[in-house]
């Protein structure tokens, strides 16, 4: 029986004042910056006018280089702990986020997006260049491109567009 009996608690916006509470030292550093095999994952978050969001927050969840999604604690105090496969990054004044992580042996990195002005969490996926799966196959070419990170030097770049023609593909897991 998977029938649900309790109604969900509704979400609410993260608001403008999360910066002293949710970010913490090392939050976006899933592996140390510049360590062997590390990857910079970065991008910008834009509103419907193309203006960057300086008050958004992204969280990522991913497998490691072995394809395993870690289930180990330590994300809040990373020093000396193994890769946890989870990180958090608030956008800066230019709307930019950046993570130091590894390229997973998986097709995508899962993403949760929060922002002032956004009344509930939104989910998306950052597909690795060249990745494919049945969900990606179900999209049209433009959507597929918007869900796939591009490689720039040693970094993967993935922008989030909250609305409009180029809107990021957001997911409904209902």
């Amino acid at each position: 029986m998977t029938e649900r009996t309790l109604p969900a608690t509704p979400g609410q916006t993260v608001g403008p004042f999360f910066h002293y509470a949710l970010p913490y030292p090392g939050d976006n550093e899933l592996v140390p910056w510049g360590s062997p095999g590390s990857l910079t994952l970065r991008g910008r978050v834009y509103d419907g006018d193309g203006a960057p969001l300086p008050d958004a927050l992204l969280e990522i969840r991913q497998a490691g280089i072995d394809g395993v999604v870690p289930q180990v604690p330590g994300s809040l105090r990373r020093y000396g702990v193994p890769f946890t496969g989870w990180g958090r990054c608030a956008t800066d004044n230019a709307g930019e986020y950046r993570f130091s992580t590894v390229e997973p042996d998986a097709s995508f990195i899962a993403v949760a997006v929060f922002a002032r002005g956004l009344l509930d969490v939104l989910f998306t996926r950052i597909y690795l260049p060249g990745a494919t799966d049945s969900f990606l196959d179900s999209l049209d070419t433009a959507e597929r491109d918007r869900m796939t990170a591009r490689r720039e030097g040693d970094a993967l770049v993935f922008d989030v567009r909250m609305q409009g023609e180029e809107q990021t593909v957001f997911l409904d897991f209902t």
Partner: protein
Amino acid sequence: MPTPLDSQATISEEIATYAKDPSGPQPRLDYAPYRSSILRHPTKALKQADPEGAELLAPVFGPTDVDPLEADLTIQDGGEPLGERIRVQGRVLDGDGRPVRRQLVEVWQANASGRYIHQRDQHPAPLDPHFTGMGRCLTDDDGRYTFVTVKPGPYPWKNHQNAWRPAHIHFSMFGTDFTQRLVTQMYFPGDPLFALDPIYQSITDPQARERLVASYDHDVSEPEFLLGYSWDIVLTGSRTTPMEATDD
């Protein structure tokens, strides 16, 4: 010249229009009375997807991540904050009523005067040198969390003219599945600002938004020390509409 702010009457009219056509238990993302949402809500439909891979597993937190003292917001800064001392406690459950065990809960809030320590908060109410207004804890084996803090004050914001947020505590929760991630706000019973607030009213189903209001709980209150509030949280997954039991 900045555009003059709309009046509360204009916002309340818009709230009333949306309320005529309630749209489910989650907030509407396209909710114009909350002006900041206008350019920040998706205008294309979300795509149905089945959770896969990393989406099936929430991050894991443990005693190395959180110090138990972080659950007491009244002892963090070398003195007692001003305000009404309270305990807020409850359980984090999944849609089947199972406790979400040993999982991270984060909170942040304004002080008793309605002022956040955040630099962007320019409300001319006093900061409290003994209150930062953020806390963390891990749920126990019964899914229970508990925080000691002071009751936050309502505060003004610039959504419209004479806009005031009802007093609230921001809550951030993780389930067992990445798609159960929830950030929300807990409110206090009987707040006269509920009807006027476009963030609270963005949940257009009245029963659903009442689930964000804690109950005063005299069994949690402690003599000569603090007042108790209870609030349970149910995480069912992303934008899920719970199915009603059919065998009643």
